[in-house]
């Protein structure tokens, strides 16, 4: 087993697993909060369509956890807001 960083913990994953699958395997079902209601979201469609499972990967926001292959040493962080709140004008 190899692992990637998720917020303050390390998540083990099997070869070929996506970030989303590895998080579910680790018992983590929700990892984003909605922009307005602040409610928790995780995998919904699981096939890249619904954009519910967004995470920040190595600093890049709005990555779909269900599509991103897990890689050893990557840093996945919980995303808040749009992930681009610094651009507001």
């Amino acid at each position, binding site marked *: 087993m190899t692992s990637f960083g998720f917020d303050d913990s390390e998540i083990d994953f099997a070869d070929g697993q996506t970030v989303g699958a590895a998080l579910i395997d680790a018992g983590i079902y929700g990892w984003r909060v909605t*922009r307005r209601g602040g409610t928790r979201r995780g995998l919904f469609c699981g096939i890249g369509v619904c954009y519910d499972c967004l995470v920040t990967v190595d600093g890049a926001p709005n990555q779909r956890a269900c599509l991103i292959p897990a890689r050893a040493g990557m840093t996945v962080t919980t995303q808040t807001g*749009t992930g*681009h709140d610094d*651009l507001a*004008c």
Partner: protein
Amino acid sequence: MARVVIVGAGIVGAACAFYGARAGLEVTVLERGAVAAGTTGAGEGNLLLSDKEAGPELQLALRSSLLWNELGDELGGAGFELERKGGVVVASSPEGLTALRRFAAVQRALGVDSEPLDQSQLHEAEPHLSRALAGGAFYPGDLQVQPMLAAATLLAAARRHGALVRTGVEVTGAVLADGRLTGVRTSAGTAPADYVVNASGTWGGQVSAALGAEVPILPRRGFILVTEPLPRIVRHKVYSADYVANVASDSEGLELSPVVEGTRSGTVLIGASRERVGFDRTISIPVVRQLAAQAIALFPVLARINLMRVYAGFRPYCPDHLPVIGADPRLPGLLHACGHEGAGIGLAPATGELIAHLITGQPTSVDPKPFAPERLIGQLT
């Protein structure tokens, strides 16, 4: 009380239903699909004064501008995301800026407000705009609505005035008596009518042909790119001055000019492409790529942003780029209200009001002659 069947529940049909029902007409809307399922659901939702040159369409747009503002107050603009945000038109070259200034001066004389923006004012108005632009103009009268919500709001208001809205019902032909239209045949029986309004948008040619008095309406395909939700990074509707030339062009080929705007939900919408390829919905990756590149040239920050999806729609156009609104002289009882090309959301209220006035015999708010079907008869190919 006259019975009016309106064919189509897009924004134009919805506006015809609203103004008709409010004028006391007995309105039935027949829609083969769902509300806003055609061109209304595939656009951006703009009422633009800024892109209209002097002429009848500008008169219709000015009237519509007043009516959209009135509808916002009357029906609750927040419910259909009415934003009086204004438009910013940008020119990339000094020559383009000179042409834009000249265009704006003609419009100003006709009642379209605008303010010139130099480079620093442009940056102040839109901080993320490229610094390489020559200048622009701000048009405070340009509005935005969410078109599907706007159509639904108008239909709901029409129903409060007694209108009936039937979806999943396709109009297949005419019911005639003594050479006059007295109803329509549909996939769910016949519907009696004293007047039938063809508000079927891009499919207005087919519907009018089925009724026996065809008008030439053709599809002009466009794609819209949708970004991931963002904080507000684009404050106005922003587009290149080239857009005006493209809209009016008769070229058969692909035409592209960048049009960028934010929405209430945070997504940024990127257009606008125009192609005459019939009813082909295939997404063209080269066109999508060019649209994205043009948008990035205007707003370099977009290079960091993901697209979530792309959608296609068909603008309904008449050969002379004017909508066809009014009674068909070949078939008493039939009126057309279609062919608004890319301006249907904006022009819908004035169109609906005009149709209601024509049916009830009241004085009209705009001169109906330039829109009358007569001009198109004989132009069928």
